[in-house]
């Protein structure tokens, strides 16, 4: 099977998608990405905004209902979830094969 052209996901895209398994607005995404990555991935506002815009264009995430009039809330789409799972499989394979060979 041919691999989807969006794979592998970049580290930032991966964590953003993972964060959006629960709907969140921009700043909350920033905090969740930092938390999920154990403080390794810190995104600045301009970079995150561009990444969100791009992921909406790719239909990996979409705007969700928001109670805050200023802040948009985003959530992962089914397509985004598929991507996340495919990338997880890819990494699982890498881990398995690496563990075997380094034994």
């Amino acid at each position, binding site marked *: 099977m041919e691999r989807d052209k969006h794979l592998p996901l970049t580290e*930032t895209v991966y964590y953003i998608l993972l964060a959006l398994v629960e709907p969140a*607005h*921009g*700043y909350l995404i*920033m905090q969740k990405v930092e938390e999920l990555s154990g403080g390794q991935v*810190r*995104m*600045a*506002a*301009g*970079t*995150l*905004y*561009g*990444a969100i815009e791009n992921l909406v264009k790719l239909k990996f995430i979409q705007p969700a209902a928001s109670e805050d*009039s*200023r*802040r*948009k809330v985003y959530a992962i789409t089914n397509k985004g979830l598929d991507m996340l799972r495919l990338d997880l499989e890819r990494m699982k394979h890498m881990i398995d094969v690496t563990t075997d060979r380094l034994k």
Partner: protein
Amino acid sequence: MKKYKFFINFDKEEKWLNDMARQGYLFTKKTLFGYVFEPHKPENAIIKLDYRIFKRRGDFEDYCALFEDSGWEHIAGTKSSGYQYFKKANNQGSEDIFSDVDSKAGRYKRLSDMWAVLVCCFTPVMSAIISSDVMDLGVLRDPKTLYQTPGLWELNGGAFWSAFLFETPFALFRGLLWAFIPAIILIYLYFLYCANKQYKKTQEDRISRK
């Protein structure tokens, strides 16, 4: 205080605004060609620039909210101004509004796209000028035809000069109005070239840093 200046390089513009803040002038507003400053206590401000045009009001609000939440005050810029100025509001958070090279270069890409759109908008006007007879290159060979004062070229001395100088601005306007459009296109093409060059240069930083 108002200063007139024009930048085609975001990094130089940021540096200049930060230097002004260090001298006690805080940038508060941008007009078409000028920057408005207010006296302020000198500080090591960090002012950063993004370039984005928004289609919807809500997108612009969301964008500003994200920056404010992460410690950047939006000091100048509107929904469709493109140029968006931010000042670091506190000691928390990042030192820059971009955390990777691609997004830092991306603002130059958006700027160069905007110049490209402007060039495209003016190109039909240019072809209209070429296909009509407004552009009369003959006047460059015989500029005298631009002057319409009866008997001007038969006048002598002071009378000639005063009539001549009086009509010159009108003559230039009549004869060279068409030249305005190609001049604008050339200027935009130059800006487009600069923005593109800066885009590539910023992206190359990644390679040299590695």
